[in-house]
């Protein structure tokens, strides 16, 4: 039986990817942020998993407005890296786990979550920047990955309740997979940031910290927070945080907080990062 051994939440700022790719992580501007991930890089080595299910959003990199899936799941054997306007990031190709992702996709659909099944998918900074933060710059990524893209770009995004519920369904599906493998679930994006309009640059760190506390301690209350509140309090792009609820749903009722880190700013963003362990 497969097991979920941890949840990881982290921002996925594109400029962080540039800093890694151009060797600037030790610059004065970046050093304090990357130092905050040193613990985690060691922790994921000490607590290895076979598969990472990475909940992220595409930023008009693979999906345009031709097709905009609300919830998608990659079922491919490998995923290439998107050209986001300046050439693809120089990172290893992302290898999939077709058997588990096929099982997951089918389970979710049978549980009434109408997934878009993606046999072809290129992945952007939303997925690769968290991997760079956790794994550094290896020649090949250490785990198999199941990309789980969510529409957070166009309103209406899926509700918080729906995100939390699909996370619980991911937990059930993983536990019903017959192979004896270990899995981590990642929720990416956020925290508060706004990258458009006269209000750009908005950061709301107290709100971000409260969000982390609620995610850990009372996700069943947090799930009802309306999109409007995210957009007012955490900025128009802060609504990405609904993806953290999917990760949280996949961890079961009670979790232990292994690690927490906040840093302002990376580019325009309040960086937040959590490692959580399911208690059962």
């Amino acid at each position, binding site marked *: 039986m497969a097991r979920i051994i941890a949840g990881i939440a982290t921002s996925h700022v*594109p*400029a962080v990817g540039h800093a890694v790719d151009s060797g600037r992580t030790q610059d004065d*501007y970046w050093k304090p942020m990357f130092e905050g991930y040193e613990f985690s890089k060691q922790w994921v080595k000490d607590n290895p998993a076979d598969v990472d299910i990475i909940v992220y959003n595409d*930023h*008009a*990199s693979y999906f*345009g*407005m*031709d097709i*905009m899936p609300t919830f998608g799941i990659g079922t491919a054997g490998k995923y290439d890296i*998107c*050209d*986001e*306007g*300046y*050439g693809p990031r120089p990172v290893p190709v992302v290898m999939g786990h077709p058997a588990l992702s096929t099982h997951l996709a089918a389970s979710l659909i049978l549980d009434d979550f109408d997934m878009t099944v993606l046999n072809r998918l290129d992945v952007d900074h939303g997925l690769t920047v968290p991997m760079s933060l956790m794994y550094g710059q290896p020649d090949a990524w250490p785990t198999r990955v199941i990309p789980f893209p969510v529409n957070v*770009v*166009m*309103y*209406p995004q899926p509700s918080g309740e729906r995100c939390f519920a699909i996370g619980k369904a991911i937990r059930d599906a993983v536990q019903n997979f017959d192979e004896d493998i270990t899995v981590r679930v990642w929720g990416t994006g956020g925290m*508060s940031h*706004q*990258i*458009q*309009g*006269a*209000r*750009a*640059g*908005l*950061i*709301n*760190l107290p*709100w971000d910290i409260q969000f982390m506390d609620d995610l850990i301690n009372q996700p069943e209350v947090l799930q009802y927070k309306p999109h*409007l509140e995210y*957009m*007012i*309090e955490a900025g*128009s*792009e802060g609504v990405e945080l609904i993806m953290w609820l999917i990760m949280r749903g996949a961890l079961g009722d009670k979790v232990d907080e292994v690690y927490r880190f906040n840093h*302002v*700013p990376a*580019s*325009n963003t*309040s960086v937040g990062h959590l490692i959580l362990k399911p208690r059962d």
Partner: protein
Amino acid sequence: MKPNFEQFNDIPGTTIFTMQMAQKGFQLNEFCMSLRTQENRDRFHADERKYLDEWEMSEDQKQAVLTRDFQKMLDSGGNVYFLSKIFAAEGMSYVQAVSTMTDMNVEQYQAMMVAGGRNIEGWRSKKERGEA
């Protein structure tokens, strides 16, 4: 549930990319998506007007692109993740491009970010600010 696309209108200095806005901006955003290949970026930079004329965008949208008026692009249905293809292709960062939509220059904007970002106090509601 009846959709409420107007609920975001009271947020100051903010354009929410709703499904309605996505309709309005479809061709503009399609043009942006085309810049994901070097070949198209080169063609666009060689003759911007000619390249834009290949798309069924409004003249206003084309002018907004030519003058790099990102706020105007947002107002006509563009979304910043799509628009990022325009400024990324010119080697511009999000901080540089985003600052142009505020009342600050890029140095002032960067200084605000490094000092902790824009404080939300006073930025929750147009009504509160006397803008509506």
